[in-house]
């Protein structure tokens, strides 16, 4: 048995200001024996924008991304919802096509909807720090 091994590599796109929280929570969620090895790269379109309006607009990753052998990619960005349904499906298709469908692509809203379906939830309550116009869309 190997002491160390790589199970999967995941590419994750998220707003840079969330890194501290996302990493901490990811370590908390990891099952026993599994850890995360993180490295980060800046995406200019996200890093250089300071206004909420630009920040909240999801953008596709560069064409050459991922270039380090990722087998799975999660394009997490909760404000995908600001584009209106079914935007996450269209975005996932665009991203998958942009990389020749070499790896699976999903989004956080996709995971959330899948969780609702798995748990058979159709009446929920929502709490967020978002502004009202974001929450309502």
């Amino acid at each position, binding site marked *: 048995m190997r002491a160390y091994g790589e199970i999967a590599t995941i590419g994750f796109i998220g707003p840079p*200001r*969330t890194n501290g929280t996302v990493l901490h929570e990811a370590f*908390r969620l990891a099952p026993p024996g599994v850890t995360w090895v993180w490295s980060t790269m800046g995406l200019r379109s996200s890093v250089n924008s300071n206004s909420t309006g630009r920040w909240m607009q999801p953008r596709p990753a560069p064409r050459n991304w991922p270039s380090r052998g990722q087998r799975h990619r999660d394009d997490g960005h909760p404000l995908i919802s600001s584009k209106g349904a*079914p935007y996450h499906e269209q975005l996932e298709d665009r991203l998958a096509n942009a990389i020749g469908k070499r790896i699976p692509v999903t989004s956080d809203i996709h995971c959330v909807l899948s969780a*609702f379906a798995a748990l058979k939830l159709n*009446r*929920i309550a*929502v709490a*967020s720090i*978002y502004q009202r116009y974001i929450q309502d869309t």
Partner: protein
Amino acid sequence: MIEYFRHYGVRTLADEALSYALADCITKPSMTTSYDTAKTVLQRAPEAQGLYISCPQWPVIDQIETD
């Protein structure tokens, strides 16, 4: 999100949006803000089947494990 979820057949019975501006997301929430907000919104929707706490800038796992 509420409209988005509705598109997929999920109805939001009650919600709470704290309306933080971008900089507020870093400075305003405490480690229990998500817990306090979740409790508030659940009190308004006791018939809800589930609670969705949104935004990756919120630390939530400790709060979920509290109850």
